[in-house]
Every structure is written in C-alpha cells, then in structure tokens.
C-alpha cells in the first residue's frame, strides 16, 4: 500500500473506525429486530445488536501497544524473588514493575463477559418461547400468527 494512503487511513479513519462499525452493526441488528417478519430472524438480529454493544465496550479498553491483561511471569525476574522476600519489599517491587500502560484495561472485558452470558441466556429463553409459539400456531411468521389471531381468521 502507498505509504501516504496508509498514514492517511491510520490518522483519520482508524481512530474512530471501530465506533463507526459498531454503530452500523447496531443499526443492522436493530432494524432486523423491528422489521423482520420471521421470529428466528428477529432473534439473529437481537444477537447481532448485543454483540455490537460488546464490540463498543471492548474497543473502549484497547490501548496502543499494550499486552493482554495477564501479568506475565516470564518477562520480569522480579516476580520470582517477590514470593520469597518480605511483605514490604514485595509490594514495593511489584508496584515498581507493573506499568499500567503495558496492559489492556481489564474492566471492560469483565463487564462484557457478563454481557455475553446475558446475551446467550436471553437467546436461549427466546428460542424456547418461539418454539412454544410454533407449537400452538404452527408458524413462525409474524403476519401469519396475527392473521390466525384475528377474529375473522381461521383457527
């Protein structure tokens, strides 16, 4: 790639690209939830909608040139010593060794673990409800179900 274009992209598009895509995915999911006729399609839209929000949160916690949020044992020799050394020593040692810019922000990750779990629970329950709807109406298309419920309709 031409280096000028690359710099242009890196400076103007990359800083907000994640946030744009998150909004686009969220709009796709929301549109599907509101307008799709098939109940399963609505649920796929719901799952996309929820992952889009998770994408947003995870993007918040990213740092440039940062490691995964697990403190590495191999990188620093200090750790081996701290287990043996006394309390005050070890606190000082670790405090000095851990640079907060080296590790990604763990808080959004934790929040999103919870959000993923909530997402799959909602999906499972909603699938169960749609199976119950199928059992009693014989279809999963919203317009057909509403037709059957209308007093004039058959059934």
């Amino acid at each position, binding site marked *: 790639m031409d280096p000028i274009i690359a710099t242009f*992209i890196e400076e103007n598009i990359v800083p907000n690209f994640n946030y744009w895509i998150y909004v686009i995915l969220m709009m*796709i999911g929301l549109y599907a939830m509101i307008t*799709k*006729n*098939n109940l399963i399609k609505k649920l796929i*839209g719901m799952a996309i909608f929820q992952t889009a929000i998770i*994408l947003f949160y995870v993007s918040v916690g990213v740092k440039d040139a940062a490691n995964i949020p697990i403190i590495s044992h191999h990188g620093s020799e200090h750790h081996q010593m701290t287990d043996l050394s006394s309390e005050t020593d070890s606190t000082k040692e670790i405090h000095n060794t851990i640079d907060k810019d080296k590790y990604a922000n763990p808080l959004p990750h934790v929040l999103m673990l919870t959000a993923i779990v909530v997402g799959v629970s909602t*999906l499972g329950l909603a699938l169960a409800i749609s199976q119950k709807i199928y059992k009693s109406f014989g*279809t*999963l298309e919203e317009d057909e179900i509403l037709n059957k419920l209308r007093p004039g309709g058959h059934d």
Partner: protein
Amino acid sequence: MIWQFDIIILIFLVIAAIISLRLKDLLGASMVFGIYSFLICLLWAEMGAVDVAFTEAAVGAGVSTVIMIATVFSTKRRSKD
C-alpha cells in the same frame, strides 16, 4: 495490534451480519451467524481481550449456534424474509 487486520475483520463482520439476515434458509442463516460470532471472536483476540474472545468462541460460535440450529430443526427451515 495490527490495524489492517482490524479493518478487514470489521468489514467482513458487516458483510456476515447482512448475509445472515438476508438468507431465506434459516439453517444457513444460523450458520452464517456462527461465522459472524467467530469473526468477532477473532477481532477481540486481536484487540487483547482474550477472556472475552474465549467466551465468545465457546458461547457465540458454539452453544448459541447449536441451540439456534436445534430450534430451526424442530420448527421450520424456510423463512419468508
């Protein structure tokens, strides 16, 4: 962190999302949704959120897709939209 990967995966994500919503075959839609989950899991691993990526791989690409396919099998495979 390589932002080129990031942008490519993000674009694929949008494509996968649109395909899974446009397919009239619900089984195919569920599978494309599995692909979508897997892509987003890659994205998170690339962003350094390994625990989230692990969970999404197990839940989104695994269990969610399986229960969705189970539902499609026990109901109807064709969709009108």
